């Protein structure tokens, strides 16, 4: 299944300067009961967005009109916790295409990349600057250029790392499974001959 191609993006951003945002916050477990990939956006950050009575929490960033956009800027160690891919689906379904942070948890990073959501790692200093920029000017445009691996807002430019293979996949909308399926014959042989179980 090929996915949407990602080349570059210019958008405003939503700041969420909290560290260690775990996948239980991104999408609480009780909303993992669907058997399809769609519709998780409604429950993104559910318990931060809504109070016990289901009313929107007024000062939560996703509820006000001040911030919007396809880029989420979040504190360090974003996506720690469970392996639930639903976290990436929820962010994507809500409309995010990029998450910028100074550190991502491993499994989340993989899941995001497998679903067309680009995790962009920047330095702590750049991240701090970005929070300040967005807070001062919510309509500031941020450019994420995957081809050149840069993120920029005004004069602040940062290079980011991305694995070459994953970059090719994102740009072309490829899926890992296509590559693995092409190895089918080799794997069959391996399955029969490899020692130890």
């Amino acid at each position, binding site marked *: 299944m090929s996915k949407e191609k990602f080349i570059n993006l210019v958008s405003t951003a939503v700041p969420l300067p909290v*560290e260690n945002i775990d996948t239980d916050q991104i999408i609480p477990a009780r909303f993992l009961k669907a058997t*399809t*990939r769609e519709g998780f956006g409604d429950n993104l950050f559910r*318990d931060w967005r809504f109070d016990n009575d289901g009313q929107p929490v007024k000062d939560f960033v996703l509820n006000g009109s001040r911030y919007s956009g396809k880029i989420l800027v979040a504190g*360090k160690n974003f996506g720690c916790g469970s392996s*639930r891919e639903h976290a990436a689906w929820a962010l994507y379904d809500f409309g995010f295409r990029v998450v910028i942070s100074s550190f991502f948890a491993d499994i989340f990073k993989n899941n995001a990349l497998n679903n067309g959501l680009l995790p962009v790692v920047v330095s702590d200093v750049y991240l701090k600057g970005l929070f300040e920029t967005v807070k001062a000017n919510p309509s500031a445009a941020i450019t994420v250029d995957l081809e050149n691996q840069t993120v920029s807002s005004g004069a602040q430019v940062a290079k980011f790392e991305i694995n070459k293979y994953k970059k090719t996949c994102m740009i072309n909308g490829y899926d890992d499974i296509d590559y693995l399926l092409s190895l089918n014959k080799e*794997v069959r042989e391996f399955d029969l001959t490899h020692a130890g*179980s």
Partner: protein
Amino acid sequence: MNDGKPKTIFEKIWDTHVVRRAEGYPDALFIDRHFIHEVTSPQAFDGLKKRGIKVFNTSRTTATADHNVPTKDQHLPIKEALSRHQVETLRNNCKEFGIELYDLGHPFQGIVHIIGPELGLTLPGMTIVCGDSHTSTHGAFGNIAFGIGTSEVEQVLGTQCILQYKPKTMLIEINGELGKGVVSKDIILYIISRLTSSGATGYFVEYAGDTIRQLSMEARMTICNMSIEMGARGGLITPDETTFNYIKGRKFAPQGETFDRQVMEWKKLKTDEGAAYDAVMKFNASDIAPMITYGTNPGMGMRVTDRIPTLAELKEINEQGSFKKSLEYMGLEPGSTLLGKAVDYVFIGSCTNARIEDLRLVASMVKGRKKAANVEVWIIPGSKQVEQQAIKEGLDKIFEAAGFELRSPGCSACLGMNEDKVPAGKYCIATSNRNFEGRQGPKSRTFLASPLSAAAAAITGKVTDVREMV
């Protein structure tokens, strides 16, 4: 792939499972054993259907229902419609694709990371994956086991492989003797409190040292289980006699001569003298005391007799805002102690601590004692086999006499996905692995601790230094 360089056990296992290593690509890694459950598999099966492909090798995949099953009246249909639908979807998918399912009511059903080892499906030297981050549990047997996302579940079902970059390696060595009342859960909570919840991100951990060597298999599983809570991809322990004795005679383990031959192979699975790690950490067992967490990630832990840090103390290692937010959520004051803090719920269960040894530990603490009036206690065995064994040993009677109830197996209150939830604002001392906001139910507050400490709290009704009771 033998270039003569000394290798870690991790590298040895990894390298023998690489089907293809190509320039510019991650390694295509062969997967020996794949576990699936109802929550992270439906979309993967959907993917297979859309592509029109079959499961590559059905004998390498095992399924169970655990995350959203009720822990009472398991013989009745699941009440909650969405949970029921998810379990039914798993049932239909397993039937359609020919996968063995240990469904509700089956004598082998249980939490996925508990049944693999107890059935002898988890063995040394393997590569093991599951759409669940606590797959690291299996690493206690000396294998490479890690959690994956649903897209990857689909890859493994369809191709028996996964595309992965080799993580860095970290050695964590613990030496010395554990003090009174200190068990393996305290060791891992201590390590995580030192490394923080992201301190091992990007690494695969090997636990070593004489303290680890002396632990039982079940205690080792508790340690490996929580590797992910410091961000590690997984954690493993070199197999030894303890490992082989545990495996011997298990249902799906190699038997007789085959077993003996395998043991010879497994004995070769160890880190070569002089092999290099990307990071090395050393700890003393004597520094470890009964541990408890006070915050909303497992790295926010301390010795039960310590004070919660103040904002000033944390300046360098944590952004103050997040720390403050966390303590506000928990309803706790910086600088205060948790000793004597009343708890409302005690949860003994989860893939971290719901094996028979855990239940024996709890029984040893509560025998002849009564639960405090202010607490509700849930004891959830990790599997049907654990439940049966507990009954056989009469542990259920001990629990009953103390005012507890032994329920049926499942993930239960480890995650607020099934009927067992901690109400908003209530405190729960839990033997599980995560204290995230809302993990045990919306606005629930979790203290992570060992089964021994949880059992002590069940008796006293408050956070207790278990050393005063053993």
